[in-house]
C-alpha cells in the first residue's frame, strides 16, 4: 500500500490506480484517458472480501461485483446489494469489475453509489499519514471525480446493516436489460414502524454530476403512511430537485419524468420489503 501510494504521488497525473480495468481500458481505447502508468493494486493484501461485523459490513475495495452476487453474507444480510450488482454490465465484466473501482470512477450514472449512500455507507481511505473515513455521500466531488488526494487509495466500504423494519429498493431505468447505463437510478431506504415511515433516504443517480440525495422528497415521505398522494408529492419533488442533462440516452425532461415514476415504484418495492 505504501509503495502504491508513493508511486501515485511520484508519477502524478499520468498514473491511475488499476484494479478491474473495466472502466480504464474502454476509456483509454476511446481516447478519453491516456494513462502513462497503471498502478496495479490487486496484489495488495487485505483489500478483498466481505466481513460481517455486529452492525455493519466491511467490503474490501477489490471485491468484485460477482463476489458480491455470490456472497453468502450479502445474500443473507444485504441482498439489495446483490440485486443492484446483477443489474450492472454483464457477467463477464462483473468477474473483473470492483466495487472500489466503480465508486472511484464516479460515473454520475454508476449503480452502486445510490443504494450505498441511502444505507449511510462510509469509505475508508489509505493516506500516507494514516487511514481516514468519509461518508460516501460526501465522497463525490463532481462528475467522474472523488475526494481523493494524490496518493490516497480507497480501501474499504463500510455499510451499516439496515435495522429491522427497513425496506430497501433500487429502480434503474434503462432501455435494454443488460450492459446498460441508467437513465435514472433511484435508491430508496425506508424505516417503517407500524405502517408509518419514520425515516427515508432517497438517492438518485444519473440525474446530476454526482449521486443526489433528494431531501425534499424524503420529507414528503417521513411521517406518512406512504399512500398514493404521499408518493406523488415525493415523486414530483424529486423530479424538481435533480439537475439532469439531455444526452444521447435521454432528455432532461424524460429523466425528470422517469425519476418520478421510478421513485414511486422504488417506494412501493421498499414498502413491501420492510415487513415491520
Amino acid at each position, binding site marked *: 500500500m505504501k509503495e502504491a501510494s508513493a508511486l501515485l504521488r511520484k508519477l502524478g497525473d499520468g498514473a491511475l490506480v488499476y484494479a478491474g*480495468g473495466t472502466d480504464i481500458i*474502454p476509456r483509454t481505447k476511446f481516447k478519453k484517458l491516456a494513462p502513462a502508468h497503471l498502478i496495479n493494486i490487486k496484489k495488495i493484501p487485505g483489500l478483498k472480501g466481505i466481513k460481517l461485523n455486529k452492525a455493519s459490513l466491511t467490503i474490501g475495495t477489490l471485491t468484485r461485483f460477482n463476489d458480491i452476487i455470490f456472497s453468502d453474507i450479502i445474500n443473507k444480510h444485504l441482498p439489495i446489494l446483490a440485486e443492484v450488482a446483477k443489474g450492472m454490465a*454483464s*457477467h463477464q465484466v462483473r468477474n*473483473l469489475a470492483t466495487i472500489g473501482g466503480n465508486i472511484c470512477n464516479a460515473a454520475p450514472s454508476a449503480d452502486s453509489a445510490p443504494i450505498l449512500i441511502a444505507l449511510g455507507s462510509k469509505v475508508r481511505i489509505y493516506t500516507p499519514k494514516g487511514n481516514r473515513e468519509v461518508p460516501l455521500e460526501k465522497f463525490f466531488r463532481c462528475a467522474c471525480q472523488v475526494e481523493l488526494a494524490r496518493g490516497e487509495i480507497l480501501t474499504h466500504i463500510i455499510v451499516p446493516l439496515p435495522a429491522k423494519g427497513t425496506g430497501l429498493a433500487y429502480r434503474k431505468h434503462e432501455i435494454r436489460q443488460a450492459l446498460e447505463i441508467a437513465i435514472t437510478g433511484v435508491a430508496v431506504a425506508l424505516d417503517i414502524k407500524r405502517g408509518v415511515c419514520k425515516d427515508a433516504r432517497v438517492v438518485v443517480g444519473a440525474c446530476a454530476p454526482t449521486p443526489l440525495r433528494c431531501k425534499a422528497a424524503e420529507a414528503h415521505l417521513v411521517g406518512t403512511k406512504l399512500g398514493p398522494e404521499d408518493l406523488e408529492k415525493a415523486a414530483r419533488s424529486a423530479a424538481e430537485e435533480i439537475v439532469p442533462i439531455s444526452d444521447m440516452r435521454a432528455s432532461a425532461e424524460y429523466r425528470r419524468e422517469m425519476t418520478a415514476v421510478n421513485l414511486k415504484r422504488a417506494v412501493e418495492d421498499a414498502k413491501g420489503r420492510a415487513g415491520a
Partner: protein
Amino acid sequence: MSKAERTPDQKKGAVMKKVLMQITVNGDGYEVAIKPNHTLADLLRDDLNLTGTNIGCGTGDCGACTVLLNGEAVNSCLVLALDAAGSEVVTIEGIAKDGKLDPVQKAFIELGAIQCGFCSPGMIMTAKDFLKKNPKPTKEEATEAISGNLCRCTGYVKIVQAIMEAYKYA
C-alpha cells in the same frame, strides 16, 4: 486487430518496451514478450495464434472475446496481457478433449445455434462457465446467462436452446 501503439498524447519517439511474461493457455505453458498496453485478447490472437477468440467491440460490450481466466468467464479485451501473467486461460480451442467436441459445442452445432460463427466462441465459453453451476437451466436462466454476449445472426433462440440442452450431449 492490433491497436495503435502510441497515442498522440504520448511523446514522439517514446516506444513501449516489451515485457516477458508466463501464461498457461489450454494447459500449455507459454513465455511471451508483450507490450504493456496489449490485452489478453491481443496476446491470444497475435502472439499465440489462437484466433478462435474474436474481438468484436474491443470494449467489453459484446462478449465475443470471452475466455475463462482462472476458471471465470471474462472479456479478454478488458484484461491487460501482463495482468494475466501467471494465470490459467481456457479458450475455445481448449475445450474439446482428445479430439472429441465438448458437449456445449456439440449442442450448438446440432441445434443450429451457429450461423456466421463470430459470436460462437464467446457464447460457448460463457455457457461453459454458466453450466458449471447450473447444468439444466430454464429458458429464463439460459437467456440471462448470455446477456453479456451479442449475436447478430441467430436471434438467440437456438443458442438458448443449446445451452438448455447441452447436458444431453455429454
